[in-house]
């Protein structure tokens, strides 16, 4: 069970941790860095509760080995808000009551951010298919899809030149 030193950037800050022994990036985030916002719902990449963004790409942190994070730029739910200022997605999830238990919420927010980063004006169908890798058992997805569409509109509004 040899472990290696891994250097990465998490939410804009340089971090150093020991990874190895079959440990996933999710294990490293949760157990080594104590960033427990990313959740393990399955450990097999099926539920999306561990969704994080690595070098701009949406990944299931449970499917990536911790040492693979070497030199990578990782975004997690803990870095989604700008300090104490919520991201429009977080704001709209609250406004729409788009969460009940809240366990899938961090993963859904990160997956939604990855969508809006590349497609600022998604259709309902595009939102539904993009989020098909993120399971929610509480909401039936209705309010989640609406929240993402409204957050996209908020972000487009904010981007408009005045």
């Amino acid at each position: 069970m040899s472990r290696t030193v891994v250097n990465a950037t998490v939410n804009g800050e340089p971090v150093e941790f020991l990874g190895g022994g079959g440990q996933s990036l999710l294990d490293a985030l949760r157990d080594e860095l104590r960033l427990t916002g990313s959740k393990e719902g399955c450990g097999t990449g099926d539920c999306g509760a561990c969704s994080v963004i690595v070098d701009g790409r949406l990944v299931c942190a449970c499917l990536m080995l911790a040492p693979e994070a070497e030199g990578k730029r990782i975004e997690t739910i803990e870095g989604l808000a700008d300090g104490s200022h919520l991201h429009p997605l977080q704001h709209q999830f609250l406004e729409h009551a788009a969460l009940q238990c809240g366990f899938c919420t961090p993963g859904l927010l990160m997956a939604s951010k990855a969508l809006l980063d590349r497609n600022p004006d998604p259709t309902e169908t595009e939102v539904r298919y993009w989020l098909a890798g993120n399971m929610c058992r509480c909401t039936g997805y209705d309010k989640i899809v609406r929240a993402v569409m409204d957050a996209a509109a908020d972000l487009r509004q904010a981007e408009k030149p005045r």
Partner: protein
Amino acid sequence: MSDGNQGGKLKVVGQRPIRPDGVDKVTGRAQFGADFHLPGMLAGRIKRSPHPHARIASIDTSAAEKLPGVKAIVTGADFDSGASGEVEAGEGHTAIREVAQNCLAVGKVLYVGHAVAAVAATQPEIAAEAVDLIEVTYEVLPHVIDVEEAMAPGAPLLHADMFTKGVTPKPDNPSNIALKSVMGRGDVAGAFKSADVIVEGRYTTAAVHQGYIEPHACVASWGADGQSTVWCSSQGQFLVRALVAKILGMPLSDLKVIPAEIGGGFGGKTTVYLEPVALVLSRKCGRPVKLVMSREEVFLASGPTSGSVMDVKIAATKDGKITAAEMMLAYQAGAFPGSPVHLGCMTAFACYDVENLALVGYDVVSNRPKVAAYRAPGAPMAAFAVESALDELAQKLGMDPIDLRLKNAVKDGAKTVYGATVKSAAFVETLEMVKASEHYKTPLAKGQARGVAAGFWFNIGGESSAAVHVDEDGGVTVVSSNPDIGGSRASMAMMAAETLGLPIERVRCTIGDTTSIGYSGSTGGSRVTFATGMAVVQAAEKVVADLKRRAAETWGCDLAMVEWADGVATCADPSKDAKPLSMKALASKSAKTGGPIASEVSINAQGAAAGFGVHLCDLEIDPETGRSTVIRYTAAQDVGRAIHPAYVEGQLQGGAAQGIGWALNEEYVYGKSGQLENASFLDYRMPVASDLPMIDTILVESRPNPRHPYGAKGVGEVPIVPPLAAVANAVSHVVGKRMTSLPLSPAKVLAAMAKG
């Protein structure tokens, strides 16, 4: 007391404020079951049975014990063998001994995944290695998975000492049928003889899992003096305390259970699997132990709810009046007795006023994981059979399916088959609103069909506690006694704010641990907003009374002259020069008027009113693959009054989605060897966002519950009752024949279409 029927005067109730715990849940700060970490904490791992049925000949832990880093190993022998009695759990009673034996097997393993031993070690990898080093010698026994095979004479017996209850005289031989449940009334045979129309059929459903995304997780820490703490996600900290303390033979006061945030439960977290094991491991080595299930373990060894076989027969007049019904329900219990078949019998015809009824239910054990409560336990399967049969009846009579249900709908004063009298029911209004809805009037395109179905759930009240503390600055903290599984902090804070006359932002809500608030039943039975909400309102009313007394003392006026509105006391006595006293002013001077302002109320809430739902499902089927796609869906429900309408809608939408999954995709698949073949989210297919349309809701608020201060009824469970039949009826119409076996997987639908 506030008048439940004066909705127009309400300022907070009925609004949609942001939930008090919202920011924690969108920023990753909320701490769920697996998120706790303690210094010196060990990682636990469980050894599970590879066999569906076997005698445990021996367990050799010697090699595992020698592995460096292993600190404790336990087996079923480590539990208090004298543990007995029952505990109120979820929506029924549960026998302590069986819960203990489900946590760690004694003598026999009864299903693949049954826990036989557990290890605590310094690293998860070491615990996993130690589990592999434990040698269990089994004598493999014949197994039985299917419910009908388990009922047949000569079936392999799970429990040699189990004789069917509910049968007199007591049977001579043991059986896998734990209970025969019989209920009925009237002259069923006579009514069938004189019937104009009869429909009958056999309906089956598969075992399905609650599917909460958060696997079971806990941390347990034993104190050298016996005083211990468990952190866990559950639907009831008091239930966990009762079960763990009794399994370990310890006094309740020595165990503190701290509720974590809970990542979904739907009934599946109204029992324990890990907590007693973690605590007994901690007792052995004196260090805190964390146990977390993998998703595979969740499928193998927790939940699910029963698969079922049901025969239903309904008699009616030619104008659609149901005159009699007969039904047999056989429900899988899993390895230990306790399927919700009794609730299936009670709810099957609860929507309808039927004079002559005969119901018989069988609770059947087999080599599957023991079932746990799942949202309206027992009702969705029964409603699938009954609502499918009614759809067939409507077709036979050439009647609109909603008109058929309106003709037979229960109204206030009707007697249910289980003896209760229907009160505050808005089933007729719910049906009428669905009939008048834009959805129901919209014509279908070619190849599409529409299914209609109704559903009933009791909703319960029961024991609850709540406290209202006025802070020194006039703000308020509400302490709830129930884990918040779907936004109940919001409804608790809103009801307190309404009663106190404060803006919602001045009221916060927290969930107490077992030592910081009075006892409460679990978060289940759709009871929290009703029962714990009632405790919150009563505590707030006591605070208002106290504030008025303090104002009267301050002004030196008669208490009767003090009025309280919008968080301010005013004096109606014109002879006094009394400036209004705000909450803030009264709170800041509390030391001079009697000390801190707070109230805690513990009640046994009565008067929970049953709820009714009616769902519409439009659906089309790909003729090449047999895949069904729901294209439009409406869920309507009699909700009393919605305290926070967005979270009520969310319950309807979530229940509908789970029911759609139950109808179309979800099932426990077993091979001949008794192995569960789809213990993962990849192979156990729950609905994802691209499978579903928007789910429209109709909240019927025409009958606020007069027994609740703000008119609330339970809302969480009703919405999973109608969808199985709403979906199946739509599929049946597209296929052109009655589809009677869930799930309606593409292969099954394709085969039915091919036969024409």
